[in-house]
């Protein structure tokens, strides 16, 4: 028997199941749209919202989950280490939510230390201090005081 495991990505989390584990899933009921199973004496069920090949959208308890069952080719590529390693240093600071910049006192070329305050973003009447997670040098300040920003908008570029 091969030790080949089936890898599933669900909402960004990766899980590897052996064939034995998959065989151990007891299916209570299934049709095109619904599935109920028992695993370790816990039963749960969901609705298959959509299915394209091995890409599923599963609805469970009112929540949607994007599930991708990886085929063996995906796994070989992953095993070859072609997927990118995690970068440790940020290239930019993005807005974690839409809001209003109410304080920003940075200049290009400025050095900032880990946990230093970069700016204050007000959203829904709450003031949130945006800090830098590591030492860095400010390359570009992209927003100004009083500016409204969208979620994900680049606020500051780092060297």
């Amino acid at each position, binding site marked *: 028997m091969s030790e080949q495991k*089936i890898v*599933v*990505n*669900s*909402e*960004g*989390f990766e*899980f590897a*199941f052996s064939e034995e584990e*998959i065989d151990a*899933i007891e*299916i209570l009921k*299934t049709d095109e749209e619904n*599935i109920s*199973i028992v*695993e370790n004496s816990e039963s*749960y*069920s*969901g609705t*298959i919202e959509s*299915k394209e090949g*091995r890409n*599923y959208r*599963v609805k*469970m*308890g*009112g*929540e*949607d*989950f994007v*599930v991708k*069952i990886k085929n063996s080719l995906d796994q070989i590529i992953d095993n070859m280490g072609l997927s990118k390693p995690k970068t440790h240093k940020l290239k930019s600071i993005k807005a*974690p*939510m*839409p*809001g209003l910049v*109410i304080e920003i006192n940075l200049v290009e070329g400025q050095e900032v230390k880990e946990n230093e305050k970069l700016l*204050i973003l*007000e*959203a*829904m*009447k*709450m*003031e*949130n*201090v945006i800090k830098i997670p590591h030492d860095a040098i400010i390359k570009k300040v992209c927003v100004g005081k009083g500016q*409204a920003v969208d*979620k994900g908008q680049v606020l500051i570029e780092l060297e």
Partner: protein
Amino acid sequence: MKKILVANRGEIALRIMKSIKKMGIKTVAVYSEPDKQALHVQYADEAVCLGEAASAKSYLNMDKIIDYAKKLGVDGIHPGYGFLSENAVFAEKVEAAGITFIGPTPEAITLMGSKLAAKDCVKHYNIPMVPGVDHAIDDIAEAKKVAEEIGFPILIKASAGGGGKGMRIVEKQEEFVEQMERAISEAVSAFGDGSVFIEKYVSSPRHIEVQVLGDKHGNIVHLFERECSIQRRHQKVIEEAPSGILTPEKRQAMGEAAVKVAKSCNYVGAGTVEFLVDANLDFYFLEMNTRLQVEHPVTEMITGIDLVEEQIRIARGEKLRIKQEDLKINGHAMELRVYAEDPLNEFLPSVGHINRYVRPTGDGVRLDDAYEEGMEIPIFYDPMIAKLATHGPTRIEAIQKMKQAIADYEIEGFATTLPFGTFVMDHPAFISAQFDTHFVKNYFSKEQSVEWQKGKARKAALLALAHWKSRKNIIKAPEVSNFSWKKR
């Protein structure tokens, strides 16, 4: 009263208008430019635009609201909650314009609006209070000294605050100055008053409040308590009535204390007396909110009383129709505030476009909302989308109904607090009613929330795998004929 203007927006404006309409009274809505299409505007008999998005230029513009009210022949103004609801100047201006303010007197608002004056006022009624300073502070150096005297952890609260704005817990001395600066700045921008109040932070606290109703003839009743301990960022997110831990004796004691607090300021209308309750069920007076509360539906569900209707009747000068001895608790009610926030990202706002919106229905399910599919959640105001409330004969039945209602409620386009609601309803500490205001900190830290999400993701993965396996077997069925050949 023939025509009432509701000086608010969103679900609360709509909820208030429903009671007004039921009473055969005309409604006037006000709105800001981005709220032009809002449901409260569509629902009202008449509607007027106040101006730009910023609250200061629209929903907080007292003179404009009153001018429109006069022009339209309005004879009552209901402020809802938030915005101008606890603004004594507004209440005064409304009355000066010859219009009835549906709420307490400006004197009661001023008195209870200042936490210090409120404590001073209720002192004479033997109501227990938490240790703290007896004056508001806006000087950081002085505040630091006071904080060190009381001892950490301490709580900084905006003197004019409410709704968690301008409120910070400081665990350590080193964090004090930065937190104090933020609290003052928030207080200035939200309330125009940067003075704060510093008090000892009681550990393992529960937040339990009592609903009161007072008429203009000196009658005051209480409508039991609401348990509001499940909070994030010091703002309530799940409430229930009655509390799962109070004994009948404690309930009566707290109810009587709340009535005394209301009496101390000759309270008129619907109000809420907030208490901090410690592990021994000893209670301390926190403050009185001189308005309708967000969580009022749970009280309505267990008492069968429409609080907005009572507010209007009281404002018209009618005597209370209910006596204390007639009030009884019927069953149990739960409320979840559905916010456009991401529980997996420390409840940060996650506003956007509503791609799909399906309301939950069913016996004992109440939804106070003001959105529809295709609408945008504006960033200018509170991120609350709706209040989902359920009622059952027992606490556990109310919890079960809430779980089902959450599962039936479909909101797509951004993250909401709905999954967090399920997390709480499933949690042993919540089910056993043994929790305090640290519930989120204790059980839903960043790491714990990620672990929880991962657990759900794994279940979803197994469901997909099981489905894939079962389908694969069906597709592979014709291959069975080759089976013996393969084996050879």
